[in-house]
């Protein structure tokens, strides 16, 4: 670590990594194309499951482009990326656990709805 710093200081301590303009504009164009694609795909009537999956895949590709290039993760220390992806892991855990008991109270809610329907029918 100390050795690296010495060499870096010798090179003028370069911290700036300016991304080339064609790369930035190219990523933007790709993002716009994927946006158009996702709107088009939604209109193809693929059915609920398939269209959701396709939309999420396209959104994740767009997210990947923004993260790796605009947010510079492609060139950053791996720690930043690991920590960021770690958060998504916890979000998956959160949503996954919530989904395991989403129907837990359904019998009670159904009974309540049936009671209300019976009462308003009277």
């Amino acid at each position, binding site marked *: *670590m100390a050795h690296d*710093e010495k060499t*870096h*200081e010798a090179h003028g*301590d*370069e*911290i*700036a*990594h*300016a*991304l080339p*303009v064609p790369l*930035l*504009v190219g*990523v*933007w164009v790709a*993002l*716009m194309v994927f*946006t158009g694609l*996702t*709107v088009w795909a*939604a*209109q193809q*009537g*693929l*059915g*609920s499951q*398939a*269209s*959701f999956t396709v*939309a*999420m895949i*396209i*959104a994740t590709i*767009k*997210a990947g482009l*923004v*993260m790796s*290039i*605009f*947010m*510079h993760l492609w060139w*950053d*220390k791996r*720690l*930043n990326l690991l*920590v*960021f992806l*770690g*958060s*998504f892991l*916890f*979000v998956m855990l*959160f*949503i996954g656990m*919530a*989904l395991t008991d*989403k*129907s837990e109270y*359904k019998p009670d809610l159904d009974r309540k709805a049936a009671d209300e329907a019976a009462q308003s029918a009277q």
Partner: protein
Amino acid sequence: MSDTTVEAVQGAHGGGHGHHDAAHAGNPFLAHHFDTPRQQFEAGKFGIWLFLITEILFFSGLFCAYTVYRSLDPDVFEWGHYFLDTKWGAVNTGVLLFSSLTAAWAVRNAQLRQHGHLVLNIVLTLACASTFMGIKYMEYSHKFHAGLLPGRHFQPTEEVWEMPSYARKNGPAPEGFLEGKAEGIEKAEKLITRGHPYKFEAPPHAARFFAIYFCMTGLHGIHVLAGMIVWIWMLVKALKKQFGPTYFGPVDFAALYWHLVDLIWIYLFPLLYLID
């Protein structure tokens, strides 16, 4: 480098005074508690990434609510999405994507000390953010006027089959249906498309869609506004020509926050507007 014995600390302060050594003298924006601009930058970067992680977890609460509600009542989401105009959602997506470009470009400008271009890109980012909020305001007012609100304020004055998006998905309305003619209504009731008759009545808990819609886009909008405040701050600093190859952290970190705001919208758009 990080020798924290009392003597070492005293030596560093007694000997060099963090403020007066070569690195600090040449760089007015190098804080005294950092040894080099690189160390300052990397610390700041790690800090902003930690903050972004808290933001993701913050939004995940609402994404969890969305997932649970949509898996329990997919009808509610299908019914509700017809009231959203995909065109404006797509325009907003394009606007935010362009603002991410100008934000990333601004970071490059700061690194290369291109003061004029930096100011321009920050101004463009702010303009896009304002456009986004303007479009959101227009969408929200429409819903307020149509009674499409969460909870007990849910008193819709529009029917889903009046929406052009409904006709696009389910074919044109039977003749006479929209005018309320008897034969039209009879035809509509016979016409079963996508599992429901042409007259798609609001399912139970329909207001949930709008609770989710307003909470998620509202929270996102608040983040856009906060981002605008940060960019105005960056604009002031940029006008003072403070940024350069050893000091561009604030612009870099503001851009990282801005990209996160864009990322969230990248997911919100298909989840709310492009439901099949």
